[in-house]
């Protein structure tokens, strides 16, 4: 028979000696490998006390963004909803009234904005479609819930904390995005 590769290695079928039959050397060799791993870094982490850093392209829960002054970016243009392959986003637009300029960045805003997280496939097309940097996929995933209706995320669930009123929570919600943005703008 012709070999398919030239890497074929003939097996040594020589009978084992008495010393070899005791397996002492082989056991020691195995124990050494085990021993060696005690001093190596662990492959697992202690979740949830410890959390891994996400890959920069990780797509988690949607966040509705605010600008630096804490005004909502979303103008309820509907592009995320129309881009959504799961049809999981719905919104109702409203007009900004005089005196609400500190709440909404542009003349229209989303009075209602809901995502059905049971339907969402976290594809990120909403983020891609958004012309206002108003929706992006964060580094958290949807927590478990006892009821299905708990997965219908409204504006109160999605909005990022106010950067001036809750700066810490805001930074945390921003995650590595802030760093990435800085990096992108410095480039």
């Amino acid at each position: 028979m012709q070999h398919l590769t030239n890497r074929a290695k003939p097996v040594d079928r020589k009978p084992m000696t008495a010393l070899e039959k005791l397996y002492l050397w082989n056991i020691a060799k195995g124990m050494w490998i085990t021993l060696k791993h005690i001093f190596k870094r662990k492959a697992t982490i202690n979740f949830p006390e410890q959390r891994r850093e996400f890959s920069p392209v990780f797509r988690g829960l949607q966040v509705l963004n605010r600008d630096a002054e804490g005004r909502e970016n979303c103008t309820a243009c509907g592009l995320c909803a129309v881009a959504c392959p799961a049809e999981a986003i719905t919104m109702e637009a409203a007009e900004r009234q005089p005196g609400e300029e500190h709440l909404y960045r542009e003349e229209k805003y989303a009075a209602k904005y809901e995502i059905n997280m049971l339907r969402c496939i976290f594809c990120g097309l909403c983020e891609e479609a958004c012309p206002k940097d108003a929706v992006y996929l964060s580094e958290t995933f949807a927590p478990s819930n006892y009821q299905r209706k708990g997965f219908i995320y409204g504006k109160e669930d999605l909005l990022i904390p106010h950067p001036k009123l809750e700066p810490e929570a805001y930074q945390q919600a921003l995650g590595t995005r802030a760093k990435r943005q800085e990096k992108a703008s410095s480039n």
Partner: protein
Amino acid sequence: MPKIFIDNTSYEVKAGKNVLEACLTLGFDLPYFCWHPAMGSVGACRQCAVKVYKDENDTSGKIIMSCMEGVRDGMHLSIDDKAAKAFREQVIEWLMTNHPHDCPVCDEGGSCHLQDMTVMTGHDYRRYDYKKRTYVNQYLGPFIHHEMNRCIQCYRCVRFYKDYAGGKDLNVFAAHNHVYFGREKDGTLESPFSGNLAEVCPTGVFTDKTLRQHYTRKWDLTSAPSVCQHCSVGCNTIAGERYGGLRNIVNRYNAEVNGYFLCDRGRFGYEFVNSENRITKPQVMHQAVDENALMHHLETVLTNHSLIGIGSPRASMESNFALLDLVGKENFFCGVYNEEMMLERRITDILDSGKIPVASLKQIEDADAVVILGEDIWNTAPMMALAVRQSVMKTGGREATEKTPMPEWHELAVKELQQNTKGFMVNVTVTETSLDEIASLNINAAPDDIARLGFAIANHIHPSLELKNFEEAVLAKAKTIADELLKCSNPVIITGTSCYNDPVLRAAFDIAAALKAAGKAPAIAFVVPECNSMGLAMMRGHAFDTAVRRVNREPNVTAVILEQDLYRNLPAGIVDEFLSKCRNIIVLDSLNNATTEKAHVLIPASTFAEGDGTLISYEGRAQRYYQVYVPDNKYIRESWKWLSRMKMIISGKANGHDPHHDSVISSLETALRQFAGISAAAPSSGFSIHGEQIPREPHRYSGRTAMLANRNVSEPKPVADGDSPLSFTMEGYQGTPPSSAIPFFWKPGWNSPQAVNKYQQEIGGDLIGGNPGVRLFVKSSGNMPEFFKDYPEHFRERQNKWLLLPQSHVFGSDELSVYSAGIAGRSPEPYMGLSPVDAKMLDVTEGSQVTIKSEKEEYSFPVKIVESLRNGIVLVSKGLPGTQGMSWGNWVELAK
């Protein structure tokens, strides 16, 4: 037919068109802005450039604007030519330099012609890096939102508003790169056609302000073809819904009816559907009940009583017929007073004879002369007034271009030649109207005198009667008008019921008949009060007076009152008498009103948005409107469904199911022969294309799995529509549906309303598959029409009595549209018009309160002195609060 070569392929095109129209008709996507099929070409935007070659050997060619070039036989042109393409891309880049690119906040986004054209030309990257010019926006009233920064200076708005619709308060200001389209100063746009700016504007400068209150993108609307409910013209509309509320009304093109436009009453009068005043639950003795209790109660009320039904001029044919079917022909009455009934009967008799054809709006536009007798169409049928204006302008244009041939589409050139030449139009009305300014001759007279003038005109054209006691002045006027009419070939006579005067109708017919005898092709149009007045009149029920006599005679009557407020159209005393004599009163309506207050059993009926139905317009055109959405409230159903249920209760065949639309309409056809053919107004519910229904939602419809998730995470199965070939989903046939079932206009690359181009046989022409609607009055050949010979005596003032006539208002006179805040805001305060002499005699001045006394009622209004009014007539605003139930056409007393 000329043959032209586009990119070396030959095509046959229609002569007399411009290259742009020809290319679009052939299905090419050629970008344009300033050209509009209804308004012609001006060559302002430079967007529709193509390359034209001298002959087949010419390779260099030259760039021309396709909208400014007529088609010639053997013409060689190229759309795909590199230079032409680059030119178009460059033009749009220029136009976009100052455009704010604010599509996310712009209401036009998703139905924007500028977006479509930008994508079509391939301009996708902004190179202009400088400051954009900005403007201050204006407040333009409750209907139109102004955002001048988005303007691309195509001039369509002023061309429509001023030239097409005759508005005066929108103009263009400044020059160079900072022209401004707006009013002289902030304020409401006065024209009742201002809403069309939202569709005419290729970008978001003028947008629908009422849509802004509950904004939804075009792609998110569930829409259905509908028919306007606010006057008898029957304009075709598209109604859009989202989240269980009606969001907007846009135009649905019908070449024979409304074409590209709507009036503001029709466009913005939809809010009554979302009104707080809706009837939401069945009530028995003012107590809300559930369906079982209602049915149980109905059983006791309907059986063992004699039933009478009061049909409604604003309910669909189906509902009126279901009522007739329930109560029987001899027990079917119309909610219309005897006098009005006789007028409507006269109209249907004339039209039924088929001797003179009815004029559609398109025919009015194309008419070469118009005579209006006694109807203020500007206020009672606004779109008809717009059509009359086109007739006057077009005829003037044709006259002007007789000597200097110029194609009709060459708008500026024609206007330049035309100057002030206008077509012949006589406006004979009770008082001055907004159409006076374009009329060749304005005559204000009392109804009887209007009729006499009409008879005199007819007699001049074709002597058929002996005129006695006619003043010389009237005869002279009649002669001038008759002579002018004899020069025309297809004149239109317009009249209506507003004068509450039968001789006026007869006179109008006589003029038309005389013209026919003189070898002309006349047409006639009778304006009737409400959207289905014509349909109700064609049913030939008895007048309301008979119903009153009936309940006075018979003690044990259950009256079923269909979708109307009797107190609005009939004197309160008579309605009170009627209602008090009825043992049981069952009222079906959508909104609470004075009549529903008196109901023993109140049943919530659907509006046009929540139900199917057919309306018959003034021209006898049966047009179908489709349910737009399924309301959350399961009690809201079409009246015909409720009435059929009642019928089942009586016959003991109740099975808990509603009848289907198809069965109702086919029984209507068999039961009443005058409605034969009405089922052809729309495809039947079983209609499908390749087994697919027609989707009410565009394929881009968003949020399907999220919209209702806040109520129930489990997605419900889409509701099936057993009444029409339309489905309540986004799935279904994506091609061109039958013309009477087009839920929205969209074609790849054409998101704006201009997508209608792709639904037409030729640009600006009929829809593919013919225009929607079936005309029920059939033209009869045969003998010449018989003339009416009995002309009235001329109008004589009476001692201390005045003839009460209505003054209609575009905004306010219609019952349902005033539920829209904008329309309510624009409706005037009710007033009483008196001639200066009468005012002096009564010793009253402008603004002083005067009381009108009719038989039982008294009304009080401030006086307005109307110079053009004859003595002995009192005009009162129609339909406004406080003017309900006036006995129009009767003699009343006035007191300070």
